[in-house]
């Protein structure tokens, strides 16, 4: 202890205190202040940048969800349109079919009626012609047959029979 006290130098103590306090104030003004400020500023900058990036990402997400929504709507609209179109097509087709059926039926009816008319006309005509023919035949036959009396009677009888059968 005595050695320590003997070695203790007041001058050294004085200089150390003075120089050190001076150094603290000098460094505070020219070094630590600016350094710590700069570091703080940088850290704040990094923090802000990170926050901003986060915000941007959030916005991106929002935009994306918006896009999705729009897309979904568009798709729904398209589906609705397609459905309408399909329905319209189907009704049109069925209507057309029905109309065609009706028309066809009508035409068939008309054709049938026409055929029936023609048929009856043809039959009438044929009857007329056959009448004429049979009259002429009968004339000839009568011309030939009437020479024979027995035959004439026979024929008349036969003809009468035939007529009733008709």
């Amino acid at each position, binding site marked *: 202890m005595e050695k320590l006290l003997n070695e*203790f*130098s007041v*001058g050294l103590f004085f200089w150390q205190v003075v120089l*050190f306090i001076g150094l603290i104030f000098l460094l505070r003004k*020219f*070094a630590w202040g600016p*350094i710590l400020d700069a570091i703080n500023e940088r850290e704040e900058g990094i923090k802000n940048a990170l926050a901003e990036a986060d915000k941007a990402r959030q916005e991106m997400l929002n935009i994306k969800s918006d896009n999705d929504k729009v897309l979904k709507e568009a798709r729904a609209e398209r589906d609705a349109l397609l459905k309408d179109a399909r329905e319209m097509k189907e009704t049109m087709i069925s209507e057309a079919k029905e109309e065609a059926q009706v028309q066809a039926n009508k035409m068939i009816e008309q054709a049938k009626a026409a055929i029936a008319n023609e048929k009856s006309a043809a039959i009438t005509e044929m009857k007329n012609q056959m009448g004429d023919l049979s009259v002429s035949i009968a004339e000839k036959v009568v011309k030939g047959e009437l020479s024979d009396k027995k035959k004439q009677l026979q024929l008349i009888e036969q003809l009468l029979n035939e007529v009733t059968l008709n």
Partner: protein
Amino acid sequence: MYSKLRSFLTVFILIFSLHSFAQEHGHENEKHNEHGEKLSLKDQIKADIKHHLQDSHDFHITDWLTFPLPVILWDDGLQMFMSSKFEHGHATVEHNGNYYKIAHETGHIYKTDASGTIHLNKNGFPTNKMPLDFSITKTVAMIMITALLMFLLFAGLAKSYTKNGGIAKGPGRFFEPIVLYVRDEIAIPNIGEKHYKKYMNYLLTIFFFIWFVNLFGLTPLGVNVTGNIAITAALALLTYLITTFTAKKDYWKHIFWMPGVPTLMKFVLAPIELLGTFIKPFALTMRLYANMFAGHVVLMSIIALMFIYKSWIGSSLSFGLAFGLSILELLVAALQAYIFTVLSALYFGSAVEEHDEH
């Protein structure tokens, strides 16, 4: 790259310090003591180690490179002269009718009679009257150099921020993480987020100052700044003063009227706590001083073994040992700076701590 550079520097410094030590011995082989007797090698080494550890009035690098420094005394007025007048402590200086001499026992300047007699007490310490000595000694010069270097280095770092848009450049790049370390690992955990800012200047300055002077102590300049008790006492005193003057009400309350203990205990605790506040800076002083002092003594003793054991085995062994110890001392240099700073921060933290009611 950095680690390579560092290891290179370490080896360089070590070899250089060995070299300068060896040189000193080469020149001083013919040293004689006060009475003209030739000194034995062991006594020479003892004297050399003592000389190295003591503050001195001239900046001695080798025998042919010694800078005289101004001596400033307060002895009935200001007395100033250059230390070269002492002729390395051999001569008695007469200045304004007063006689001064450096006692090699302590390295201090004492007032003597015209023939320069120094009276010693029974423990071998001078009893002569001492003038107040404000000389720029070797240690003071080293403090000034360190302060200048720190100023240039850190002001440069501060400037590089504004120049480079907030990013450090140059040598400051190496120190910026350390500044951040002091802030994030020393100041904030020990003092707290709320109050740490006002202590940052002190903590940073003291950390780098102690670290740098410790490192300078390991260079060939070998100036043992933190191994002077006056230096460490001054630093600890500053810590003590800052603790005391920034302390909040809670701090004093916990010293003089400890809450949460019986009244009788409060009377017992108060003097103990008060004593504790003085022991803290005392322990700070002693720790730094003793660590650096002991480190220098051990390192120099081991280097000196080389000259005592003149065989190649002893020399190479002591070289290896000195090499290992030098690296250990590099670690200790930083560790002591760290511990001084951490403990200072701890004391500041206790001064501004706001306790919840117990």
